[in-house]
């Protein structure tokens, strides 16, 4: 039986019985049935509702118009989770069944559905328009009593809460999907980059066999491929940070040797800058060598990116309060205090440099995450047009 709902009442306690009765009466009245028929139908409905409320407070009553043109009926359905000690043989149901022409009791998928109906005479001229106006009428009907007012408000609040909870779950799911997508996409993109990079290097090996004009072009091609590959790597890192799958392989590391190696490698990359390494006595930290190398590569890369060429970048370290503090000092453009606080946030880009220095704002976010995961801290000092100093502190390994 397909029914067009006009009113819906959750059956929670005896107060709802009064509501069920009054609302059913009102629907029957609005549709034009006689007072006698209104009363009989409403009595049958509230009798069933009474039995259901005695057994569960999770039933739902719906009153509306069932059937099809031209045989419409006034219908009511009461649905609740099926209960073992409540069968259709309950004596109350026999009483209700005697009151209405149509009565059915069905159990499907763990739900118990009781349906009651009484045919509507053609003289009432029920049609879709009339049903629609009936629905609209009850939608704007004020509450019958204070209880219904509170119940309506409660229903509204719990509906809003449910929707919000669903939204949060949905959002979480979308975020997970997004991370997974970025991870798969960047892995896929890496494969053609690997191929392009290898062919570029193969071409570079053959450069003396071709026109000298080709050589600088090949170098540019190689540089840009490296840049692209770094960006994809950063995307992968961010997605791993997001889903918590960033793992480290920690080993005892001699910082003296580590910095010497890394600075030698990076001096080659940033050959337009004077990179100076100020070494102190050897100290040890626990670190993932590749990840710590990534931290240095990023900080030195930034120092070069925001400094005029031919300037000096100084890498130094010292011990303070049982911690090793590495400092990377440049003679670059520096930044304002409000930027200093925001630069470690994901995707942050300073408005001033956004147009002049391309980037996605991932580098320092990843860097700070790696440092924090090593039990360390990262911070910066800066002065406009004088330069910036980035500090990384790491816990020392004491023998």
């Amino acid at each position, binding site marked *: 039986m397909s029914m067009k709902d006009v009113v819906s009442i959750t059956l929670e306690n005896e107060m709802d019985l009064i509501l069920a009765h009054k609302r059913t009466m009102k629907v029957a009245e609005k549709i034009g049935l006689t007072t006698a028929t209104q009363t009989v139908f409403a009595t049958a409905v509230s009798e069933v509702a009474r039995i259901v409320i005695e057994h569960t407070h999770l039933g739902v009553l719906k009153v509306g118009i069932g059937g099809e043109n031209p045989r419409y009926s006034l219908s009511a359905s009461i649905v609740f989770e099926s209960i073992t000690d409540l069968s259709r043989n309950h004596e109350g149901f026999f009483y209700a069944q005697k009151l209405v022409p149509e009565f059915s009791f069905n159990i499907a998928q763990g739900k118990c559905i009781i349906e009651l109906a009484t045919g509507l005479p053609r003289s009432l001229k029920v049609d879709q328009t009339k049903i629609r106006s009936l629905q609209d009428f009850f939608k704007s009907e004020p509450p019958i009593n204070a209880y219904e007012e509170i119940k309506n408000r409660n229903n509204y609040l719990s509906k809003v809460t449910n929707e919000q909870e669903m939204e949060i779950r949905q959002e979480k799911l979308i975020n997970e999907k997004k991370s997974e997508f970025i991870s798969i996409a960047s*892995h896929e993109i890496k494969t053609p980059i690997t191929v392009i*990079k*290898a062919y570029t290097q193969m071409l570079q090996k053959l450069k003396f066999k071709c026109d000298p004009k080709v050589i600088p072009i090949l170098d540019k091609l190689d540089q840009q*491929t490296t840049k692209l590959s770094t960006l994809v790597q950063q995307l992968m*890192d961010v997605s791993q940070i997001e889903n918590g799958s960033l793992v480290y392989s920690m080993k005892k590391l001699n910082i003296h040797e580590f910095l010497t190696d890394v600075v030698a490698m990076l001096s080659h990359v940033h050959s337009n800058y004077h990179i100076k390494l100020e070494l102190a006595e050897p100290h040890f930290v626990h670190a993932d060598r590749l990840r710590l190398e990534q931290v240095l590569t990023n900080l030195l890369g930034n120092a070069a990116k925001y400094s005029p060429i031919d300037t000096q970048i100084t890498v130094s370290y010292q011990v303070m309060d049982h911690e090793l503090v590495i400092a990377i000092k440049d003679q670059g453009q520096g930044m304002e205090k409000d930027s200093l606080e925001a630069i470690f946030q994901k995707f942050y880009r300073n408005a001033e440099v956004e147009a002049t220095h391309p980037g996605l704002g991932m580098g320092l976010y990843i860097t700070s995450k790696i440092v924090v995961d090593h039990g360390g801290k990262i911070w910066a000092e800066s002065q406009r047009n004088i330069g910036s100093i980035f500090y990384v502190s790491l816990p020392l390994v004491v023998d």
Partner: protein
Amino acid sequence: MKKHVFVLEDDDGLRELFTLLLEAESFKVDTFPTVESFRIGLAQQQPDLIIMDVMLPDGNGLEVSIAIRADQRTSGIPIIMMSAHRNFNQDKGNSPAEEFIAKPFDVDYLLERINHYIG
């Protein structure tokens, strides 16, 4: 006799690259897109070196490398594992491979490592 290299890699572009790169260095190269085809190839021939990817359509390179090392007939063949995954570091404990090289790789470094084993 030319040294013989097996490449297990599912990406067409990379298989073609390895073939061009290694043939230019006078190696004999056979490439396989799946673990299944690789197993058949390995049953018929005995290469001097194996280069393989970790993530494959019908299996995992780490497991394949363990099987190669466990089989007496192939246990002496050096293996170079390659992967585009950053957590490659962790794989080292799970595979008997001699080398782990991350993608994108440096051509000179790869050739240097290959020559170290079969040069």
